[in-house]
């Protein structure tokens, strides 16, 4: 695929890198020569210097050949105009833009569309991160929780604690132990390596797992594996950092009738927060001020969310919260470099806007009728939810005979709104929504399974 990326910042850089590794032809445009240099030093892509919204710059970047435009400069207006120019002058079929200003996002349904501003998909990284964080608060017994098929199927991330039900089991013994709870274990982490599990692999204490499970059985599963579910409504939550993410999370928690305490160190911002949030208690102070944290009863919190713009502050604050034995800590981490470290420090729950953004962009690049994508664990495993169409290879043979690519499983099938947790004898039918977990290396083979033949109209 020919892909044009505007903006070589954190998001642009990571997407370019990922797409270039997958063999796409990528061109990156930016105004900052240093950023472009960093891109061309680290990957095999073409770079163009200039204002990303200017027709001549887009022409120089080869816009007329592009299948996809990703406008991720730091400027909303540049991103929107670039999409318009790419559409009107160069007929780029799919256009994705990052838009951060809530004013635009609130008007999205009337502002964007075929006859309006021609943007097919808006990326709003802060909102995606906020959504992921609220989801973690809702299902705090899990390390991670992701929605598929409109929430009908959940991928639940679990950490196996010593002496709990799952520790020491083989994967093929799971169903006997879990009895009526239908689950499919789609990912397994042992010694920091993520894999798609085999039936005879053994689950050890300290490992992490992802389970595909129907929404209604999530609670049962968590109870069964020994993770207590606290009721959401009576929770005490402390948020650190009142930037865009912190604000959006506080707002959503208020809607769930949770009244969080929010600590913000910038006086102007704190004042703004106090005016714009209804029930949240806004506290002016430093994230790393232990006296303040104690005064605000950090030891009695159910959830501690470290959401400042600074990764290091978030990690340190989370460690402090851990010291006070807060049950559930969520750490916002932007940079990939910290992933391993965080795990070793015992901080289990991290949210990375970078990963969620890359995942949501991938859904526009994968071939087939893709309904959703996500990354699991450290990002080395990928989830694809796609519709099986007439004439595609995945139909009408039991899964066991399909010769699925290496490290690939079907975790769930949604047929006519009903969730089926599959086994080797399940047949996929046309129009089923199929949830697959696989590795980067097997993605092309998975796409092949969903490809339609010539006669598909």
């Amino acid at each position: 695929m020919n892909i044009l990326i505007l903006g070589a910042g954190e998001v642009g850089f990571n997407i370019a890198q990922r797409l270039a590794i997958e063999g796409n032809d990528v061109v990156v445009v930016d105004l900052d020569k240093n950023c472009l240099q960093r891109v061309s030093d680290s990957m095999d892509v073409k770079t163009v210097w200039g204002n990303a919204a200017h027709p001549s710059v887009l022409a120089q970047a080869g816009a007329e050949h592009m299948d996809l435009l990703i406008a991720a400069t730091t400027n909303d207006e540049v991103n929107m105009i670039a999409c318009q120019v790419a559409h009107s002058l160069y007929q780029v079929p799919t256009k994705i833009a990052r838009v951060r200003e809530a004013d635009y996002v609130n008007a999205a349904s009337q502002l964007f569309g075929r006859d309006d501003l021609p943007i097919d998909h808006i990326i709003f990284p802060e909102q995606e991160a906020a959504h992921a964080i609220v989801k973690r608060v809702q299902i705090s017994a899990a390390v991670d929780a992701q929605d598929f098929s409109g929430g009908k199927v959940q991928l639940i991330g679990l950490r196996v604690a010593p002496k709990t039900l799952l520790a020491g089991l083989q994967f093929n013994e799971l169903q006997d132990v879990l009895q009526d709870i239908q689950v499919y274990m789609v990912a397994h982490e042992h010694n920091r390596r993520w894999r798609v599990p085999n039936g005879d692999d053994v689950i050890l204490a300290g490992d992490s797992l992802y389970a595909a499970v129907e929404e209604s059985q999530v609670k049962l599963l968590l109870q069964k594996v020994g993770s207590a579910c606290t009721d959401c409504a009576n929770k005490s939550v402390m948020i650190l950092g009142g930037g865009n993410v912190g604000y959006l999370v506080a707002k959503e928690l208020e809607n769930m009738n949770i009244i969080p305490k929010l600590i913000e160190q910038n006086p102007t911002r704190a004042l703004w927060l106090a005016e714009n949030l209804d029930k949240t208690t806004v506290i002016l102070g430093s994230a790393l001020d232990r006296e303040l944290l104690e005064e605000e009863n950090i030891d009695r919190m159910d959830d501690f969310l470290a959401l400042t713009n600074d990764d290091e502050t978030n990690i340190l604050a989370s460690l402090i919260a851990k010291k006070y034995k807060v049950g559930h800590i969520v750490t916002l981490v932007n940079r990939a470099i910290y992933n391993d470290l965080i795990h070793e420090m015992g901080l289990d729950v991290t949210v990375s806007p970078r990963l969620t953004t890359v995942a949501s962009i991938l859904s526009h690049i994968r071939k087939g009728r893709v309904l959703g994508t996500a990354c699991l664990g450290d990002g080395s495993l990928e989830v694809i939810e796609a519709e099986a169409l007439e004439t595609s290879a995945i139909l009408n043979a039991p899964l066991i005979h399909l010769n699925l690519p290496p490290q690939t499983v079907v975790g769930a099938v949604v047929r006519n709104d009903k969730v089926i947790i599959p086994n080797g004898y399940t047949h996929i039918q046309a129009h089923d929504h199929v949830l697959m977990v696989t590795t980067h290396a097997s993605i092309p083979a998975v796409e092949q399974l969903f490809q339609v033949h010539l006669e598909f109209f």
Partner: protein
Amino acid sequence: MNINIAPEHVLLNINSGSKKALVAKMLSSVLTIDIDQALDIVMARERLGSTGIGHGVAIPHGRMEALEEPLIVVARHIEGIHFDAIDGAPVHLVVLLLVPSDEERKHLELLAALARLLQNVDVRTALMSAESYEQVLDIFQTSVK
């Protein structure tokens, strides 16, 4: 089966540099349709599976609501172009087919007829060496009965 191709819909020497630019160029020869919409439809279909059927031939296609009757555009790319074809080979002959949204059966037959025709090596050779619109039309009309 009667195959009709308008003179302006035969492009014997196209030199676009990419699949998308090629399809856009072919569609821009059609004056009666919304080109952006048609491009979206054809490229969305390509994402579900490439219509490059091998031997240097591709038959991109799609359904369009506003259309009255099937529409065929033929293009020849002498150098060859990367089209994600099933055999990985560059594509030289592109036959773009747009059909109205209804009458599914008839259109499948048309698509099948085109695919059968272009699988014939003599037909491909003749199309590659054709020098005029009349010759191209003749090849299509005499070969598809």
